C-alpha cells in the first residue's frame, strides 16, 4: 500500500521543513550558549569563536549541581511512592465491587477535576506548620498525593481489562493477597507501570509552580526553580542564561533519546488507559 511516489517525496520535503522550523530555537539556544558575552553579532549568525566558558560559569554561579541532585532525589522518591501505593490500591478498587470500593474509587477520581491551585495554598500552611517548607520532603509528600488520582485511574483501567484467572490460581495455591499482588498481579501490570512511570517522572521533574511555592527562599532548589532564579539574576547576560538552559535540558534529552521508544509509548499509552 505504502509506495514511495513523487507525492511522498513532496511530503517528505514539507515535513523536513516543519522540523527545521521546530528546530530553529534549539539552534539559537546552542549558538548563543557557546558564544562569548563580548560577541554582539546577530543571534542567528553561527558563532565564530565557540567557547565552553559559559557552561562552567553557569554551573557554579547557578549552583546547578545541587539543584540537579535535588531534582533527581525528589523525582525518584516521589515516583516510586506513587507507583507503589497506586498499583496496590488499584488492585481492590478494580476487583472488589462492594460499595466502599466504588465509593473510594469515585472519590479518588474526583481528584482529577480539582486543580492543584485549590489545594496548594491551604497545604502551604500545613507544610509550614509541619516544618517541611523549604525542604525537598514537602515536594515528595505533595507529589505522592497529587499524582494518586491520575495513577490510580491508569492502573484500574488496565486491571479491569486483565483476566483474573492467574490471581485466583495464586490464591487457591495458598498465596496471601499481598503475595498474590507482589508475585502475580504486579508483574502483569508492567506495561501500565511503564506508562505511569514516564508520565509521573516527566511531570514531577518539570513542575515549577509547586517548588516555587514550597521551596521559595531556601537554599534547596529543584532545577526549574534554580533556572528561574538564575534568569532573574543574570537577565542581561543571555549567553550565560542560555548555557544554564542547555545544562538543565541535557539530562532530560539524554534520557529521552536513550529511551525514546518507551517514553513515546508511555505518552501515547494514556490513550488506552
Amino acid at each position: 500500500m505504502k509506495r514511495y511516489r513523487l507525492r511522498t517525496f513532496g511530503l517528505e520535503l514539507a515535513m523536513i521543513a516543519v522540523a527545521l522550523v521546530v528546530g530553529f530555537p534549539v539552534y539559537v539556544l546552542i549558538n548563543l550558549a557557546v558564544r562569548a558575552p563580548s560577541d554582539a553579532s546577530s543571534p542567528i549568525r553561527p558563532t565564530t569563536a565557540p567557547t565552553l566558558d559559559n557552561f562552567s560559569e553557569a554551573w557554579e554561579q547557578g549552583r546547578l549541581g545541587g539543584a540537579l541532585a535535588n531534582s533527581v532525589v525528589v523525582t525518584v522518591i516521589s515516583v516510586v511512592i506513587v507507583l507503589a501505593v497506586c498499583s496496590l490500591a488499584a488492585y481492590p478498587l478494580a476487583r472488589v465491587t462492594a460499595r466502599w470500593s466504588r465509593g473510594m474509587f469515585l472519590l479518588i477520581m474526583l481528584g482529577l477535576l480539582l486543580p492543584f491551585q485549590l489545594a496548594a495554598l491551604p497545604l502551604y500552611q500545613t507544610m509550614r506548620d509541619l516544618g517541611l517548607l523549604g525542604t525537598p520532603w514537602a515536594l515528595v509528600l505533595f507529589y505522592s498525593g497529587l499524582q494518586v488520582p491520575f495513577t490510580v485511574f491508569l492502573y484500574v483501567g488496565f486491571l479491569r481489562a486483565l483476566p483474573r484467572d492467574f490471581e485466583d490460581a495464586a490464591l487457591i495455591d495458598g498465596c496471601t493477597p499481598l503475595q498474590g499482588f507482589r508475585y502475580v498481579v504486579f508483574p502483569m501490570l508492567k506495561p501500565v507501570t511503564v506508562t505511569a512511570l514516564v508520565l509521573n517522572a516527566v511531570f514531577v521533574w518539570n513542575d515549577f509552580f509547586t517548588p516555587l511555592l514550597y521551596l521559595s527562599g531556601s537554599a534547596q532548589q529543584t532545577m526549574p526553580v534554580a533556572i528561574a532564579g538564575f534568569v532573574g539574576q543574570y537577565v542581561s547576560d543571555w549567553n550565560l542564561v542560555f548555557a544554564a538552559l542547555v545544562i538543565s535540558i541535557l539530562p532530560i534529552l539524554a534520557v529521552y533519546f536513550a529511551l525514546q521508544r518507551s517514553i513515546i509509548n508511555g505518552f501515547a499509552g494514556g490513550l488506552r488507559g
Partner: protein
Amino acid sequence: MTIAPHKEPPVRAAAPPDRRPVIARGRRRAGPPWWFALPAMLLFAFVVLVPSARGVYYAFTDWDGLDPHFSLVGLGNFATMLGDADAVQAVGHTLLIAVSITIIQNGLGLLLALGVNSAIKSRNVLRVFLFAPAVVTPIVTAYLWRNLLGPDGAVNSLLGAVGLGGWRQDWLGDPELALWSVVGVIVWQYAGYSMVIFLAGLQSVPREIYEAADLDGAGPVRRFWSVIRPLLAPAFTVNLMLSIIGGIKLFDQVYALTGGGPGHATDTLSTLIYKDAFTLGEFGYSIALAVVLTIIVAVVSSGQYLVLSRNEKGAAA
C-alpha cells in the same frame, strides 16, 4: 461503495435486567482486602482532598495566609471578583488561550501525525524529533522563547534575514500580540505531543481498512474523512481533554514569558492566583479565584467528556 462504520442492532434488550447475580458472584470470591487502598487514600486525602475542602472554605473568608484571626465574608470575594477588571479579564484570557491552543495544537498535531504515518523515509527520526519539545521543562523553553521573541531576538533577526523585515514585532511587549505569542510557544512545545497520540490512534487502524478503501477508489481526503476520522475518536477525546485542561491551568509559560504583562494583557487565572496570594497576601481572594478555576475545569471537562464519549460511541457502533 463506501466504507461506512458498521452499525450493529442495539443489544440492550438482550441484557439481563437484573444485575444482582453479577455482584453476588463478585462477593463470593474473597477479593483483595480494603486496606491495600489505604496508603494511597491517606496520601490523597492529606494532599488533595482535605486542603481542597479547606480551600473552598477559605474562599468565603478574608484570610491573609498568616493571621490566625479571620472572618467569614460570605460571597464577598466573589462579588469583588465581578467588579475586578483584572480578574474578569484573566478569565477571558484563560478561556481564549485554552480554546486557541486546543484548536491550533491539535490541528497541527493531526497533520503531523498523518505526515509521519505516511511512507516518508524520515518518519521515525521526525517522530522522535518533533515530540522532543514536549518532554523539556516548560519554564526552560519559555525562557528560551522570551529571548527569541525579544525586540532584538532571533525571530526578528530571522525575519530580517529572509526579507520580511516589515513583519518584525515586539512579540511579547505589544499587548495586542503578547497573548498570541504565548499561544505560539505552547503550540511549538506540544504539537508533537498531540501528534504522538493521533499517531497511536492511526496505527491502531487495521491495515486492511486502508487497503479496502484504496481498492474502492477513495482519494486521500475521502479516505481520511470517512474511514480514518471515525476510528480516531478516542485519540481526539484524549487530545482535546489534555490540551483544554492544560490550557485552563496554564501557569509556567506565562510566568516566564511575560509575567502576566504587559500590564495585565496576558494574566491568566493561575498567574493571578499566584500574584494575589504571594505578592499581595490576599489568600482568601486568591483561593476564591482558585474555586472559579476549579468550576471552569469541572464544567469544561465533564461537558467535553459527555459530548466526546457520545461521539466515540457513535463512531464505534
